[in-house]
């Protein structure tokens, strides 16, 4: 869920400065350190680290409820000729492109606006934007299913009151993915706004004063001071936003079931479908490994784009 905004750990930042203690004392110190992290580390090894390795191993197996045999790269080869796989890849890319840039711009703009208001107004708007985050994805999907309903939904009612044709938002192949994207935007950026606003509060006022004395316009101040100093927060929002957008599932499962004709299915829905409706675990694992590689690759590219040392 979270990655620190300082994307690189400087060498030496964590270096343990050891006093010249006797060996026995150091062993005891080590032991207590391990003691405190042991439960967390054990859970991590069993439920995160091991499954990650296992995922790669399983992807080389033909594994279903009944069979389990080593098939080498067969699952990957099958994927490369699977038309649905290319469709979900295309859809996943569409989700990313339609969600991440828009979401980042939206969050930054709303944050800059919120930041100018009084504390009370800030609390109101931040809470309003955050409310969907405490509401279950299933609940939000139910609500939007209703809003998008062609018979009783508000959206088509509003279109018709304006004299426009109603739209089959979710059941039309050409609008279904976009409808999920719109809904996703409506529920997703509260946390980002709170974060960026907090980060705005960390920009020293004297920078703006200096800029004003030099006669810099508001726009110039925003471009030359605000945005560069917001870079770590923006990077954080972009990367977590990407990871989120890659993993949209509940909304798709509840609102469209991946349809119509797989038009809204993405990589993670494909994993679910292969693994838990077809029970082809080997193939699902191959897709999962692919997703892992894509996620890491996209995140690394973003680290590269955003990484720079910001000094106040």
């Amino acid at each position, binding site marked *: 869920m979270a990655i620190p905004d300082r994307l690189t750990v400087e060498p030496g930042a*964590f270096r343990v400065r050891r006093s010249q203690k006797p060996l026995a004392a150091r062993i005891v110190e*080590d032991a207590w350190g391990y003691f405190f992290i042991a439960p967390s580390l054990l859970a991590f090894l069993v*439920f995160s680290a091991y499954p990650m390795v296992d995922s790669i191993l399983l992807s080389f197996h033909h594994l279903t409820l009944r069979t389990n045999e080593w098939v080498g790269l067969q699952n990957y080869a099958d994927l490369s000729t699977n038309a649905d796989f290319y469709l979900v890849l295309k859809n996943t890319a569409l989700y990313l492109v339609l969600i991440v840039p828009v979401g980042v711009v939206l969050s930054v703009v709303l944050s800059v606006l919120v930041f100018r208001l009084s504390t009370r107004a800030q609390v109101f708007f931040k809470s309003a934007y955050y409310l969907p985050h405490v509401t279950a994805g299933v609940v939000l999907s139910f609500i939007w299913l209703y809003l998008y309903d062609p018979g009783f939904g508000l959206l088509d009612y509003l279109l018709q009151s304006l004299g426009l044709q109603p739209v089959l938002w979710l059941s039309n192949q050409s609008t279904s993915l976009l409808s999920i994207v719109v809904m996703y935007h409506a529920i997703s950026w509260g946390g980002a706004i709170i974060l960026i606003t907090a980060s705005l509060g960390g920009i020293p006022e004297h920078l703006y004063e200096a800029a004003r004395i030099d006669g810099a316009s508001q726009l110039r101040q925003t471009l030359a001071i605000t945005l560069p100093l917001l870079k770590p927060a923006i990077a954080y929002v972009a990367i977590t936003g990407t990871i989120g957008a890659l993993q949209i599932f509940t909304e798709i499962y*509840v609102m469209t079931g991946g349809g119509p004709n797989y038009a809204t299915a993405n990589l993670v829905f494909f994993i679910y479908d292969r693994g838990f409706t077809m029970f082809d675990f080997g193939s699902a694992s191959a897709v999962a490994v692919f997703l892992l590689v894509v996620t*890491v690759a996209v995140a690394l590219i973003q680290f590269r784009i955003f990484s720079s040392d910001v000094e106040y």
Partner: protein
Amino acid sequence: MIRTLRDSAPAEKVFLIVAYGALAVWAIVSLFPIYWMLTTALKPASVVMSLPPEWIPHTITLANFSEALLGYPVARWTLNSVIVAGAVTIGQLLFATMAGYGFAKKRFHGRELIFWVYLSSMMVPGFALLVPLYTMMASWHLINTYVGLIAPGLTAPFGAFLMRQFIQTLPNEVIDAGKIDGCSEIDLFTRIIVPLSKPGIAVLGIFAFVGEWNAFLWPLIITSTEEMRTLVVGFAIVQSSQSELHTNYGATMAASTYMAIPMLIVFFAFQRYFLRGITIGALKG
């Protein structure tokens, strides 16, 4: 930086009006669906299924709730949700506070490496682990059990990270003072660190509980009988079994309200923890 309408220059006034307008529009986008859920749940079925819509309900009824809640084992689902969310929260709090203390205040070999691995693992999509976790649970005969529902939730690198960030801000002097008073290592943790970490623990506890209450994917996969489902999974399956033409939105919104209300109450009760908690994890990195 705070300016109000009264004491601002004309250009600034225009800016503030536009700003309020844009913020209000987005607040409506964010809040209206929840308003619509609450009000629809209280409308009679005939009103829900007719147009033009009633923006404010004229007559209020609980009929949707009885329809949504009485036909299914909702009491059991609620109990399951409470058990799972409660157990995961308690487990995460214990594990994460201990680990956070270890990472923040203890010195041991491999500390930075393990912490770095934790941080990197937050990037790993949960979906990448789905199949191996499922086959693991299957081989341990934990499919469709509480242990199976709860166990994977105990791995929480984010919690450990959040608690480390918090505990790091506690002065070392209090720990040294405790040592001088003869506290054992366990005492230092339970009597000094835990009480001082309460704000951090509260933040993590709230996030963990809300997150688990709303969790969908894992409970969907690991449960196989109706009585083991959690609330969100139970109602999601009810919904998906209805045909598209016969969705009873009044009942669906009543079920949604039933699921959402406890978390909305948690949110308003702990509002400032939420607003602060989000920034603890991310910005002090």
